[in-house]
C-alpha cells in the first residue's frame, strides 16, 4: 500500500494556499478552460498560460446515479461547479448528512482518493458544500 497516482497528470497543483485545479488561459483572447488545453479552443492560439482556479464555486446542476458507474459504487453524486474564472468543472460531489444539494449552493474543492485499484490509491478532486451552506 501507499502507492498513489493522480487520475490525470497536470490537473492538480499546490501552493501556499493549498491545492487547486490547474486551468488554462489563452494569452491572446483570454478564454479559460479546465483542464488546460494545448491550444485555445476559441482562437486556436497555442500560447496558453496556467490558470490556478479558485477552490470555491457555485453549484450549477447535480445528479446522483443509483448504479455503480466507472470505478465508483452506488450511489454516486456528480455536479457542475461554476468557478469565478469562467470555467465550469464536472466533479464528483461529497453528499452532506444534513442538507440536500441545491442549485446555487456554494461548493469547495477537496483533493481526495477517488478509488483504489490493486494497491494503488487514485487521487483526484471532489467538491463538497462549503461550511455554512
Amino acid at each position, binding site marked *: 500500500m501507499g502507492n498513489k497516482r493522480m487520475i490525470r497528470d497536470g490537473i492538480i497543483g499546490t501552493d501556499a494556499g493549498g491545492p487547486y485545479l490547474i486551468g488554462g488561459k489563452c494569452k491572446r483572447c483570454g478564454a479559460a*478552460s479546465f483542464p488546460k*488545453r494545448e491550444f485555445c479552443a476559441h482562437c486556436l492560439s497555442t500560447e496558453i498560460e496556467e490558470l490556478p482556479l479558485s477552490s470555491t464555486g457555485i453549484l450549477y446542476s447535480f*445528479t*446522483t*446515479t*443509483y448504479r455503480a458507474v466507472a470505478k465508483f459504487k452506488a450511489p*454516486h453524486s456528480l455536479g457542475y461547479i461554476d468557478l469565478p474564472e*469562467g470555467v465550469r468543472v464536472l466533479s464528483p460531489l461529497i453528499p452532506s448528512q444534513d442538507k440536500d444539494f441545491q*442549485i446555487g449552493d456554494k461548493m469547495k474543492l477537496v483533493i481526495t482518493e477517488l478509488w483504489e485499484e490493486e494497491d494503488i490509491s487514485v487521487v483526484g478532486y471532489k467538491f463538497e458544500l462549503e461550511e455554512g451552506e
Partner: protein
Amino acid sequence: MRKVMVLGIGQSSFGKFPDKTATELGTVAAKAAVHDAGIDPRMLQVAYGARAVDGSTTVQDILKNLGVTEIEMNNIENACGSGISAANLLWRDIATGSYDIGIVVGTEAMTTSSLAGKLLAPNKDDLDGQLGITMPSYFALIARRLMADYGATAEDLTYPSVKNHRNGCLNQYSMYKKELSAQEILESKMIADPITLLQCCPSTDGAAALILCSEAVARKYTSQMIQIRSSAMISGSFDEPGRDLVGFKMLGVAANKAYEMAGLGPEDVNVVELHDAFSPEEIWAYEGLGLCRKGEAISFMRSGAVDINGRIPVNPSGGLLALGHPLGASGVRVVCEIALQLRGDAGAHQVAKANVGVAEMIGGYLEGLCPPIAGGVQILTR
C-alpha cells in the same frame, strides 16, 4: 444536387432477441426494404451498414444474404448517431450523382453486445467518464436545469415517456405495448435523479433499412414520391464557458443547416421522430429543432402540441422509449418512420396531414466538447 427519393423502407421487430445476431436482424430489415421497394437486390450500387458495436464487416455479411456482392460497401460507427450518419452518406451519394440507388442497414444486437446492462459511458480514457458521467447522468444534469430555468415539474419530465408509450401501443414493431402513467414512471427505480428507470429507453435488439435512389429510378418503381429534401450531419462543438446547458447549440446548428438546405422552416413541419433516449431529452430537443421558441418548451408540451393528434406530433412511432433503441438501427429507423408517415401508411399511429417531416438522431459524449458528439437531421417531404 439531384433529388433523393426514399424507395424502400423495412425493419425487424424491436425487442429482446438474444439468439439473433446483428447480421440476422439486419438481413430481416434489408429484405423487407428490398421487398418494399419492389426491386431486384442486385440493382443496389452501394451499401452502408450502421452499428455502434459489432464485427467489422456487418453490411457485407448482411448483403451476402441478399445475394449482393462486389459493390462499394462501408460500415459506419458513430455512437447513437451511426444510423443517421450512414443515411447522410447515402443521401450524398445519390444527391451528387455518384450512385443512382443504394441501401443503408442499421442494426444492433444489444443484449449480447459489450454494452448490455450498462449505462452508456464515454471512452475509457475520458476524464468525465472516469469521474462517473454516463448518458443518463448527463441528461439528468440537463433535466435539473429544465426544472430550475423553465419551471418543469417532475411530472412534466415524464410526459414524453407517457406520450411515447401511448403511441407505442399503436405500432406493431414496438418493444413495449403498454401505457404508463406519470405516477408509475415517477415511482419506478431512480437511475440518475430526477431520471427514473421508466424515463430511460430500454436496451433493444433490432434493425432498420432504407433504400434511397434518384428521381429517375424512383419514377420507374413507385408513384409515391417521398423526397429527402435535406440532410445535415455535424459533430459536437467545443464547450463554452458559462454555456446554458438547456440551450441545445449543436442540434440547433444541424437543424438550421437542414432547414436552410430544404428551403423550409420549423413552421412547415408536421411530424418529427427524434432521439428520446431519456424522457427529459425530448423536451430539450423541441427548442433545438425550432419547434417552439426559446424558453417555451414546457408550455409548448403542456399544450398537447406534440401528441399524436397535436399540431406537431413528436415520436408517433413510440420513439426510443417504447419502440426501443438498437443503437445503430435507430438513426435509420427514424427516417423510415417519417417516410412511412408521409406515405400515409402508418396505420394506427398515422398522423393527420403529414407533408413535411423531420428525422433527428444524436449520440456520444466526449470531455471538453458540448454533447451530442454526432448528430444528424434530415427533412423529408412528399
